[in-house]
C-alpha cells in the first residue's frame, strides 16, 4: 500500500502515515488498498483520508471461494480462497447447523443434506461490509475530536473529509478535490 501524506507538521505527518498503516493492517484490509492519500491540516483543522481500492467491492458468493462435489446426500466443499474460509464456514453452519458440517481438513468440508445449487449461490461477503470496515478504520485513525465527517464513495475510491466544528463549503470542496484527484488516478490503475 502506497501512502501519500500532505502535511506541514513533519512529525504528525509521519506518525499518522504509520498509524493509518497499522489500523488498516489491524482490520486486515491492506491487501484491498492500492494507494492512500492523507491530507492533514491540524491548524484548520481539516483531515481528508482517501483510498483507491484494487477493485470496487462487490458481492461474493460461495462459488467464488470454493469448489463443490455432490455425492448422494453429501456435498464436498473445497475452499480455494483462504481469505473467505471463515465466511464459508460460518455461512454453512448458519444454513445447515454445526452437526451437519464436518470440517475434515483446513480447507475441506463435508455438508450433510446440502445441495450444490443451493450452496453455490450463498452470499458470503457483500461489498458493503468491506466499505463499512474501511470507513470504520478511517474513523479510528482520525483524531477523536475531529467529529464532523462526510464520506464519499465512487467505485473503488473512498474518501472521508473531517473537521472539528462546522463543515463549511471551502473545507468540503477541498475534500471533494482530493476525491476527484483519486478517482482520476484510480482510472489508470487496472482492476485486479
Amino acid at each position, binding site marked *: 500500500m502506497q501512502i501519500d501524506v500532505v502535511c506541514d*507538521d513533519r*512529525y*504528525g505527518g509521519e*506518525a*499518522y502515515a504509520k*498509524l493509518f498503516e*497499522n*489500523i488498516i493492517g*489491524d482490520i486486515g484490509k491492506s491487501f484491498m488498498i492500492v494507494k492512500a492519500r492523507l491530507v*492533514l491540516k*491540524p*491548524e484548520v*483543522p481539516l483531515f481528508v483520508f482517501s483510498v483507491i481500492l484494487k477493485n470496487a467491492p462487490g458481492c461474493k458468493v460461495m462459488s467464488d471461494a470454493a469448489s463443490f462435489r455432490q455425492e448422494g446426500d453429501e456435498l464436498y466443499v473445497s475452499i480455494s480462497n483462504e481469505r473467505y474460509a471463515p465466511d464459508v464456514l460460518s455461512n454453512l453452519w448458519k444454513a445447515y447447523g454445526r452437526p451437519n458440517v464436518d470440517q475434515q481438513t483446513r480447507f475441506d468440508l463435508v455438508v450433510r443434506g446440502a445441495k450444490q445449487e443451493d450452496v453455490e449461490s450463498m452470499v458470503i461477503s457483500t461489498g458493503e461490509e468491506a466499505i463499512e470496515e474501511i470507513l470504520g478504520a478511517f474513523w*479510528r485513525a482520525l*483524531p*477523536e*475530536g*475531529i*467529529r464532523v465527517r462526510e464520506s464519499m464513495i465512487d467505485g473503488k475510491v473512498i474518501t472521508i473529509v473531517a473537521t*472539528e*466544528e462546522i463543515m463549511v463549503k471551502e473545507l468540503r470542496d477541498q475534500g471533494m478535490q482530493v476525491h476527484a484527484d483519486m478517482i482520476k488516478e484510480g482510472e489508470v490503475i487496472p482492476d485486479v
Partner: protein
Amino acid sequence: MFEVMMYDGGVYRSAELFEAIEDIGGTVLHMNRSAQMLMVTMSIPEEDRPVIERISKEIGGDIRSVPLAGTEIAVIGCTLGRHHMPHPVCDIAEIMRQGGAISVVMGLARGRGKKTSQISKREIEIIDEYDAAVFMFGNFKDCIEEKKALLEDIHVPVILVCGPEPDGMEDCCEAIISGVGRKAERMKASEERAKLAEISDAVNEVLMRKKKMLEEDPLFIHPAELKLLLENYEPIDMCLRPAPIVLHLDGLRVKIPYREHKDYFDNLVVYGRKLSEVADIVESKLEDSSTLIKIRTMSQIEDMDRSE
C-alpha cells in the same frame, strides 16, 4: 538513609524475608500476592541491602531498586476512547508500576479535539489527589499547544508526554518528553523502550525535587509509619480491595469510606496528638469509599500551635 526495594519471587520461604526486613528495622510498604508469586515493596536501611539481597537469592527471588515506590501516579489520556487508549497510555502506566509506583490510568470526559477540549473542576480535584500526573497528548504541535489550558490549573507536578516538542508549555509542566505520540500498537521496539525509561526517569526526577522539599520541612509523621498504625484497624485489615493503603509522598489513600470511619481517623493518636490535628483528612473526590490523608509538615503544625 532508607532505600526502597522490590522483591519479586515466589511465596516459598517468604517468611524468612519478612523476618529479615523486621530484624534490620525495615518496613513492608506494599505486598501483592498472586497465586504462588509474591511482590514485596519494602523500605530498608541502605547499609543492610546485602542482607536482603542474600536472602532473596537464597529463596529464589529477584531484588531491585524501585525509585518510584511509595508514590501514586495518574497517567491521563485525553479520553478513554480507543483513539487514546490503550497505547501508549498503558505502556507508560506499566513502566511506572515497574518503577514501584501505584499507577492509575484515567481519561478526561471532554479532552478530545483542538478547540473543543476542556477539563472540569472535578477532574482537576481528582488529579490533584495524586503525587504526579503524566499527561499523554498527540502528534500535532498545534493541537498540543492548544491543549495547554488543560494543564494550567493542576497543582501537582505535571509531566507531559507528546509527539513533537511543543513551544510555550514549560511554565505549566515540570517535564516534557517528546517523541511519543498517538500509537495503535504496543511500545516494544528498543527505541520505544528507551523512551519509556526516559519518561520513568523524568517522573523520578520530578518526584525527587518534591521529596527534597519535604526533607527541608519534614512531615509530622512519615506516611509509612502511619500506614503501620492504620494496618491494625480491623476494617482496613479486612478490606479486600487491592492495596487497601496506598502511600503518597505527603500522606496516604486509605480504601475505606471516611464517612463511616470518621471517628477512628479523627481520634487516632499519633505521637501524642490526634490525627485530625496533624493531617487533613478528607473523602476522596474519585470515590466516596476512599479516604485521603494529607499529613501536615512540622512548620505547619508549629504555626498552628502558635496561633492557638
